[in-house]
């Protein structure tokens, strides 16, 4: 559904020093408009979470920041630089400041875990092999993985894949870390582990973290700043501000996901045509 994404920011001081800023960004794919005029900002050295329903454009924001897709109008500033009109080659300079953890990992499936992690170092540094081994093992230790060096991505579980992807994303010590759905498909224990890792990276390395999530619970635990994409606009602020918001759209979204403790399921009546088909097919 087309959305105007009127900018509605809370009176917070958290985003006083934006590391990433969108201004009047319009974006669409074919006939489908994702944003009509999105303006938002993400504070430096904080954890920001983008919330919103399916198809609201959460992942598109990360891809716009990385320059993987280009906006149809408006401007995007990353670390003080307007990336809107940079060429692909000029974007390499900006991407050197970015690390991205893709939803599916995006690990090179022909390389082992070790080679996947060593890849950016081999491409962009002059480290010798011994130093590369040390760096790779330090990252694997940081994400709590051992003895996976020689495994191929296809041999990893979902949680391990996410952690390897996170280790690769922080391999070049980026100043901004983008995470696309880091908790999707994970059990609660793995979710908590990744959550702790991301917060640890933010607190200890001072990395600006921007993540896309459906998980309101983890968002409220981790986030310093939240951008909520709604069908008819976008709202941003600190988690506390959003929870106290009197905006009915915000309250409705958060109530649906957080405060809904009624686990009963209301079963709608089935159409008569369905009910008249007696028994499973093939059973007389």
């Amino acid at each position, binding site marked *: 559904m087309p959305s105007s994404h009127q900018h509605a920011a809370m009176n917070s001081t958290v985003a006083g020093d934006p590391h990433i800023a969108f201004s009047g960004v319009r974006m669409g794919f074919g006939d489908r408009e994702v944003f009509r005029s999105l303006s938002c900002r993400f504070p430096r050295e904080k954890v920001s979470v983008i919330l919103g329903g399916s198809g609201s454009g959460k992942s598109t924001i990360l*891809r716009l920041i*990385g*320059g*993987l897709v280009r906006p149809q109008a408006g401007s995007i500033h990353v670390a003080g630089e307007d990336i809107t009109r940079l060429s*692909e080659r000029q974007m*390499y300079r900006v*991407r*050197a400041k*970015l*690390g*991205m953890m*893709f*939803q*599916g990992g*995006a*690990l*090179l*499936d022909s390389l082992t875990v070790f080679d996947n992690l060593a*890849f*950016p170092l081999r*491409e*962009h540094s002059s480290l010798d092999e011994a130093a590369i081994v040390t760096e790779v093992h330090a990252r694997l230790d940081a994400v709590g993985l051992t003895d996976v060096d020689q495994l191929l991505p296809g041999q990893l579980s979902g949680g391990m894949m996410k952690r390897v992807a996170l280790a690769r994303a922080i391999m*070049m010590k980026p100043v901004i870390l983008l995470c696309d759905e880091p908790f999707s498909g994970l059990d609660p224990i793995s979710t908590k582990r990744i959550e702790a890792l991301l917060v640890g990276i933010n607190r200890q390395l001072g990395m600006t973290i921007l993540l896309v999530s459906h998980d309101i619970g983890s968002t409220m635990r981790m986030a310093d700043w939240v951008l909520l994409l709604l069908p008819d606009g976008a709202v941003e602020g600190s988690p506390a501000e959003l929870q106290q918001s009197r905006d009915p759209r915000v309250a409705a979204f958060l109530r649906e996901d957080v405060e809904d403790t009624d686990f009963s399921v209301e079963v709608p009546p089935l159409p008569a045509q369905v009910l008249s088909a007696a028994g499973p097919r093939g059973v007389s």
Partner: protein
Amino acid sequence: MTTFVHDLGWGAMRFIDELGKLAIFSARILRALITPPIRVRLFVDELFKLGVLSLVIICVCGLAVGMVLGLQGYNTLARFGATESLGAVVGLSLVRELGPVLTALLATGRAGSATTAEIGTMVATEQLDGLRMMSVDPVHLVVTPKALAMIAVMPILSALFIVFGLFGGYLVGVQLMGVDPGSYVSSLESAVEFTDDVLGSLLKALVFGVLVGLIATYRGYTSAPTSAGVSAATTSTVVVASVSVLISDYFFTALWGV
């Protein structure tokens, strides 16, 4: 009628648009060729995947085609009492036409489709976007070694196809039908010119390698990021590359007589 004209115009515009994109893609490959680092290891890996793994199918098909040519050629030449020219018939057919063309079609089916599927899968699983986010050009790392390897292996595979075809013709003509071995070899030697026929054949195979390599990598690189998209791109590679090879073969023969 209006709809037909509209569809025709739209189809023509899409065709020209695709040609333009393919030209830009080719330019990116050319630029990657001269941009360091030179990825020798990846190129050698691709030579193995596209060349060595295609050896069996190329040799078996070459042998089979040569045997059929030997048999058909013998039966036709026997009507005119000219069976001693069997070597020339088999040799010229293989060297000038069947060798490069059938090799290109076989390579399209085996290696070209595999190349498209591999790159397309990397698109669908965001591996190429992952490379871009690591400031690595996917055209430089993934596409160029594959396209270059396809260009390099095509003349070699074509030469192998021809050699096995000549051997197949010899087996049937000499061993089975009783043609004099000296006649087979001498007619072959006298009919096939090195410069006009052999070098022309290798050049033709090289051009087919460029076509198949470009089409296979381009289709994979631009495939929709879904399993259906990868499947459609793979099918498209086989169809478009095969048709391109056959059409360009006609123009090659008509314009340069190769």
